């Protein structure tokens, strides 16, 4: 298996006629956490949504260039299969208005997993990974909407894992959470990178620095600079990156 999981070639995207991404070429490495950061409106969320073709759901979005997943153009992969392999967690937690248990079995049931025992196992395993099991094991029939914000977001991560993805995309997953919940999720992501490749969009520099192995800095719809986190933070090559890291765009 090659080191590169996702490869973007001269990728661009536009809403209606407004270009939001242009000429992005980069590689996402396997088993690592890659953070995409940059000021608001730099196209970082758009870039993330392009990777599992969620961008298509936005009216008027068009793309140029290509994205490859394990060497295969994602446009040639059936969209359902692509989204199963590339899971996504959104900015605000999106638990389904169902019980915790049903949230967790939602995808497995679709993928043909049968039998209570097998389902129970999936629920337990993934809730354990996200550290939610001990908190909710006695009330799996409770509505997921009754959980706290941080718990909801961990549930969403656990739910994404039930589809058995290879890659996990996270779009500012902590922006709606308090410090404590953010910490828990960051710890969780650090554990998860052993099994999944993680791409996280964040506007929080400290967060990128704490958890990411690689960093991509976006500016004005372009990939401005990319490097390992350590290198990028200690030795930015371009002046704009330096300014950003020093809070110039805050």
């Amino acid at each position, binding site marked *: 298996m090659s080191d590169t999981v996702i490869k973007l070639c001269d990728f661009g995207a536009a809403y209606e006629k407004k270009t939001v991404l242009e000429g992005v070429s980069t590689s996402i490495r396997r088993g690592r956490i890659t953070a995409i950061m940059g000021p608001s409106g730099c196209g970082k969320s758009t870039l993330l949504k392009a990777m599992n073709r969620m961008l298509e759901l936005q009216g008027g979005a068009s793309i140029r260039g290509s994205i490859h997943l394990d060497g295969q153009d994602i446009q040639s992969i059936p969209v*359902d*299969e692509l*989204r199963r392999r590339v*899971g996504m967690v959104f900015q605000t937690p999106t638990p*389904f*208005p*169902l019980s915790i248990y049903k949230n967790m079995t939602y*995808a497995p049931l679709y993928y043909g997993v049968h039998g209570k025992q097998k389902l129970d196992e999936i629920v337990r395993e993934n809730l354990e990974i996200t550290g939610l099991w001990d908190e909710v094991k006695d009330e799996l029939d409770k509505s997921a909407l009754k959980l706290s914000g941080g718990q909801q977001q961990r549930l969403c991560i656990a*739910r994404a894992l039930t*589809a058995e993805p290879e890659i996990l995309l996270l779009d500012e997953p902590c922006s709606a959470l308090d410090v404590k919940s953010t910490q828990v999720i960051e710890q969780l992501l650090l554990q998860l990178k052993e099994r999944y490749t993680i791409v996280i969009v964040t506007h929080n520099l400290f967060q990128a620095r704490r958890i990411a192995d690689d960093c991509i800095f976006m500016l004005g719809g372009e990939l401005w600079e990319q490097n390992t986190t350590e290198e990028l933070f200690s030795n930015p090559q371009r002046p704009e990156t330096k300014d950003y890291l020093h809070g110039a765009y805050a």
Partner: protein
Amino acid sequence: MKAKVWLVKCWAILACALTFGTIFFLFAYIFGKGASAITWEFLTESPKGMIIGTEGGILPAIVGSAWYTGIACLFGAVLGICTAIYQVYYCRSQRTAERIALVMKCMAGVPSIVMGLFGYTLLVLTLGWGKCILAGGITQGVMILPFIEVRAEKALREVEGDLVHASYALGVSRAYTLRRIVLPRCLPQIVSGVILGACYAMGAAAPLIFTGAVIISKVPEDVMKPAMALPYHLYMLLTQGVSPENAYGTAFVMMMIVLVTNSLATWFTWRKKV
């Protein structure tokens, strides 16, 4: 300035009072006049008398109306809800969606008597069904189809896009998302839309005049036979001067049925919000 505000306030209160007053008067008047006609016999027997309708009851009309309305609901709900689902979740082209919306608007604007004429030409004559419950029910169904579609579409569009996207992000299909997330979420509104449509159909005599309703029939058993209907019976009783008292009685029964089903619809939507 202060006088102006006061004036507007007065006007609003007056308008409000007038509206409520009219409705209250309408109900009170009909209930007052009709209540005396309501007996056990009135509800459980067929019309009788030298001139039919002066004596006896309206049971065939109650059962007939239930049949017409049931068929109308089935027909209107299936087509209306499916159209709404197509509009919101499957239609890719803006132009097609606009055209469907236009057709729905036009359909909603067609006078009910013209709907009756349409049913008569297509179902009664061309298909050779003759006047029957099925023809009348379907005609009413076509009439309430846009009514249901508009409400179902609104309910579907109100389902949070985040949830739908979160479901797609798991790689599951649109159909699965609809079945597990979207429809359960907006079922109360859709059901209440269908019930309101039922009330609308229940009170409409015009679509039935050519397609199914008759002056007198047995309690209906066969959908391919004509049957009495409450609004048509009411119309006959009054226009032919048969029995104004029984006409009020019929109106009373009809309004009670509509009131109860309407409350049911309200309860259904309300229950979801709690």
